[in-house]
């Protein structure tokens, strides 16, 4: 007899990082049947990205991760590795793209906990689409996975504590970056710095990183902005606007960009108490970082367990979450750009939507029309966000530019640039077409 077309679980957890693993273990310990889907072949997510073929030395937080894994083991959680969540179809069944088998797996769950983490913000800059340009988080994951550094000189740019952490990682691995370009100036925000004292763990971590940068003589150029990247004579040339006017040029082989993080919530089904219950956990619910992830995952699990049992759970957020929210607000203030990043100052030929090759100039032309198109019309006709990444790396910038030009826009065809449709990610047609189980009329 053929295997059943649809597997059933009480809860499907999507995302095998800290929040997802914590949620899955908590749900299983509550006696619920749990499946955990992770897109990569191994658990870990971003922060706990595991090394391959080597020791776990040098990885931050590894003790916590191993504790989480122990909590998962023996809990009876069904792990589906290499499975990408592509959405809920019209009757609430979850679809997972099983990459290795090239099949779509249908899962009927009474509840979903979505813990797919954060995505980095990367502001559009001339040359951000070039080879050798990547995100700082992406670079950090390579360091974690391989224990090594890609060849060549590295430049880190943008804004935020992650850039400092990545620079420190590079130094520990013996490959200090040529510089760290920081739009903000944390040393010029004494009020926020004082409030950070309430978070000694963060302060200690920051101090360690900065000490490393100092002793390796890696310049942390605060109040500076990476204005453009171009490729010349086989290397990347980054033009950096310095505080007080003037520019400097840096040559590198790799430029890592990072301007903050936000929930990777593109296209995710909305949270709901209707069947199936949908709850978000961790950075994809609220970008509070690793310190909140485990608590947030467990909190989500307890909420779901209560909803499934029909009981009412105390809705107040975990104390730890509140604390991390305050910490993130302080960091946000500490790293606030010195002068607001100028979308308006970008040259027309700056790529805005990389996947479709659409530029800032293309958007400006559309916005200059007398008829004021809504966001959906801008997307469809301008093709912004119509490409493979489905707007993940351009929707924010497009929306911000539209808002700046036409504050009252979107009188109609409302809905964000990326809508709630499946597939959330491009999905193999061979897998979608595989008709071994389901046939119409059967």
């Amino acid at each position, binding site marked *: 007899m053929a295997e059943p077309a649809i597997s059933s679980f009480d809860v499907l957890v999507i995302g095998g990082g800290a929040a997802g693993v914590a949620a899955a273990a908590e749900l299983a310990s509550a006696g619920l049947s749990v499946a955990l889907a992770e897109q990569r072949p191994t658990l870990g997510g971003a922060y706990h990205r595991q090394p391959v073929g080597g020791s776990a030395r040098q990885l931050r937080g590894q003790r916590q991760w191993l504790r989480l894994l122990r909590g998962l083991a023996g809990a009876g959680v069904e792990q589906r590795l290499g499975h990408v969540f592509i959405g809920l*179809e019209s009757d609430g069944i979850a*679809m997972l793209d099983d990459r290795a088998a090239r099949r779509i797996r*249908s899962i009927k769950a009474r509840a979903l906990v979505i813990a797919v983490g954060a995505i980095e913000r990367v502001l559009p800059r001339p040359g951000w689409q070039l080879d050798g340009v990547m995100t700082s988080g992406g670079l950090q994951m390579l360091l974690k996975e391989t224990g090594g550094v890609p060849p060549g000189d590295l430049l880190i740019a943008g804004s935020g504590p992650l850039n400092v952490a990545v620079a420190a990682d590079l130094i520990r691995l013996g490959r200090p970056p040529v510089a760290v370009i920081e739009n903000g100036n944390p040393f010029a925000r004494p009020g926020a710095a004082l409030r950070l004292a309430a978070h000694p763990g963060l302060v200690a971590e920051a101090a360690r990183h900065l000490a490393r940068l100092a002793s390796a003589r890696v310049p942390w150029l605060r109040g500076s902005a990476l204005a453009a990247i171009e490729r010349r004579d086989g290397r990347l040339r980054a033009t950096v606007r310095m505080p007080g006017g003037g520019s400097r040029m840096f040559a590198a082989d790799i430029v890592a960009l990072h301007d903050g993080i936000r929930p990777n919530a593109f296209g995710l089904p909305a949270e709901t108490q209707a069947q199936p219950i949908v709850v978000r956990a961790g950075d994809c619910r609220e970008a509070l970082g690793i310190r909140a992830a485990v608590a947030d995952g467990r909190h989500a699990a307890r909420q779901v367990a209560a909803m499934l049992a029909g009981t009412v759970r105390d809705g107040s957020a975990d104390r730890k979450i509140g604390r991390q929210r305050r910490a993130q607000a302080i960091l946000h203030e500490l790293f606030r750009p010195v002068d607001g990043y100028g979308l308006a100052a970008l040259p027309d030929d700056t790529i805005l939507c990389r996947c479709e090759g659409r530029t800032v100039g293309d958007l400006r032309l559309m916005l200059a*029309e007398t008829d004021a198109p809504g966001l959906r019309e801008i997307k469809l006709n301008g093709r912004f966000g119509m490409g493979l990444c489905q707007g993940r790396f351009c929707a924010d910038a497009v929306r911000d530019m539209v808002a700046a030009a036409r504050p009252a826009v979107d009188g109609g065809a409302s809905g964000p640039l990326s809508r709630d449709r*499946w597939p959330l990610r491009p999905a193999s*047609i061979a897998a979608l077409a*595989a008709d071994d189980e*389901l046939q*119409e009329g059967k």
Partner: protein
Amino acid sequence: MGASIGGKTVVVVGAGIVGAATAYFLSRSGFAVRLLDANAPASAASGAADGAVSVASKRPGPMMTAALAGIALYRRLERDGPLGGLFHERPTIMVAEDEHEAETLRGHAEALAGAGKQLRHFEGTALPSYLPSVSAHVRLAVEVGEEGHAIGYEVVRRLIAASGVAVERTTPVLELVKSSSARSIAAVATPRGPIEADHFVIAAGGGSAELLGLSGTVRPRKGQLVVTERAPALNASLPGSLMSCRYLLSKDAILAAGGAAGRRFGLVIDPLRTGQFLIGGTREESGDTSNDLAAVRIMLASAVRLLPGIARLRALRAFAGVRSATSDGLPLVGRVPGYDNLIVATGFEGDGICLGPLMGRTVSRLIAGEDCELDLAPFAPGRFERRSLVA
């Protein structure tokens, strides 16, 4: 040919392709147009269409006659403006995958030839060189020339821009306000107050039904579609849009009522100019725009069977559009009986993109008292007796 009233102001309800085209042609004829939409231009069927500008799937009759004129108009508007660059001329290639289909296709081809379409037949050893990437089990391919593709929301946007009319978005029409004589419409009621005009055109697709008391006469018919990622070489290997001859059966107006049992699948694989493929599609008695795995599975499985190279591509987007269908398969175009200044243009089912510009021109001529050049008798709104068309 009706008499026209002297007034020159027109309210067009619905900024889909029919409304946008109507606004364009009316503006060119010197009318002052207000174009209203409950949401935004192309936010319903026109923005979720397969884009076929085609008579290939039609049988001789009023729809074929209209579609032939529709295609001719697209070619003219592409050449002379304002649709330059938006009409992609390419043949429709009807394929038969077994002998039964081949027989049906041959008969159908005869009818198309009789209507004046340029055809080429390919079978046996001629097939692989004509369609190198299509499955070997295909028995017969009939290439129907003078066909094309247009992206609905692009056409809508261009027509509106060319009309010089600013769309009034999020302006739903709540009801039609009759004049004191009750023989004409005085205004449309909107949340922002009434809007008066000399003439009124209802081109609101599915939204027309309730406004004119047509629910039951105009029904929603959903169609699911999938867009793939780019595959330039595979795309270039297709000389035109592939249409499985099973599509001929899918459009049959007499469908079983409701539910999964009543839905039809008709395969179309359209090579878009971007290098992507548009794969369709279903016909379902439903007004929602969700996609279900079962339907997508069947569509893609059929597509893979016909064009195996598709299997290694990824689906980028699934969506659904809701057509407006009538019980006899013919649209409602013309003056609403009992009113001297009210025109409806809706119920185009899957032919909205093909017929949009043509119907816009026709409605404009109707209002201007000019010769429509199109026999509207088969599309008469009054043919559905037993109900008055304005609630």
